[in-house]
């Protein structure tokens, strides 16, 4: 009889039976959080940072306007442009755009429409002010400058 016992055979397989469950869980997470984008954004979107953020509760009441330098500068030039849905619009078209957005909402919710301005950091104030003037005329006065969250002590 030997002094040393033969080493027990250790099973080295990782149990894989729960793998589909794990994957499904991840899948459901992404399915719930995902938001399919109907439009591709054609302007630069380096979103600025701020600390005093407010969250919008109801997504259905939000309409997005993207402002920034076009990605295809050789085609559209370097001047910042306004993108609504999937087309570039001029400030004068904004009233019509606002009315379109309002008509999508129920009548009693139309005054709650919030316009979310997703503006590139390098865009100038001029174009944004033009947009704001038109929004005032179109009576869409709830505005949100979309920003990222910044850690407090990083402030310059």
């Amino acid at each position, binding site marked *: 009889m030997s002094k040393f016992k033969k080493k027990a055979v250790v099973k080295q397989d990782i149990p894989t039976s729960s793998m589909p469950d794990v*994957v499904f869980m991840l*899948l459901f997470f992404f399915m719930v959080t995902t*938001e399919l984008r109907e439009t591709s954004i054609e302007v630069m979107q380096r979103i600025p940072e701020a600390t005093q953020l*407010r*969250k919008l509760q109801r997504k259905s009441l939000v309409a997005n306007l993207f402002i920034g330098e076009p990605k295809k500068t050789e085609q559209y030039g370097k001047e910042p442009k306004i993108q609504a849905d999937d087309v570039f619009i001029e400030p004068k078209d904004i009233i019509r755009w606002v009315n379109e957005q309002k008509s999508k909402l129920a009548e009693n919710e139309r005054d709650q429409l919030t316009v979310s301005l997703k503006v590139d*950091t390098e865009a*100038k104030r*001029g174009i944004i002010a033009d947009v704001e003037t038109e929004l005032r005329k179109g009576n869409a006065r709830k505005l*949100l400058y979309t920003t990222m969250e910044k850690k407090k002590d990083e402030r310059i």
Partner: protein
Amino acid sequence: MARSTPEIPNASMADIAFLLLTFFLVTTTIANDRGLSIQLPPPLDPNQPIVEFQQHNLFTIQVNSSDALLVEGEPMDDVSGLKEQIKKFILNRGADKELSDSPEKAIVTYKTDRGTSHKRFVQVLDIIQNAYYDIWAEQAGVTNARYREAASDLSSGTNKEIYEKGRKGVPMAISIAEPTKVGG
């Protein structure tokens, strides 16, 4: 008699799930609807009489086309003290003759140029709103973050209570003036 039990092969289940997972991973954009919220004034009415405000009730912040800051007529390089300055202005309640008479009368005017970058605009607006939210949160006896959370969702009773308590007597009067046309 041996009866064969019907079975669905489930070995490929993980593969299918992975495929779907990859699809959603690629197409996903986590919703980001957070930012600085403001309310625009109603459209300009030409018949509206021009209201004059007393100079000491106005706190003027100006940014020019090269993003330089002018606060109450003084150039400012370091914005770290701006928030406290605004808070002092709002909560002055007539103590200093140069500052506001009362929080209701205090107005922060913010004027930019057409050439001011959006980054700078947001940075300064953030500071102004920070001053107001700090005051409101203090009045409501909660933290700044909690107050903003409550203000974002007024559907619950406690949130509404906090919101109303905080902003009582201190309206957020930020006037964003039409930008000047030097740059841009």
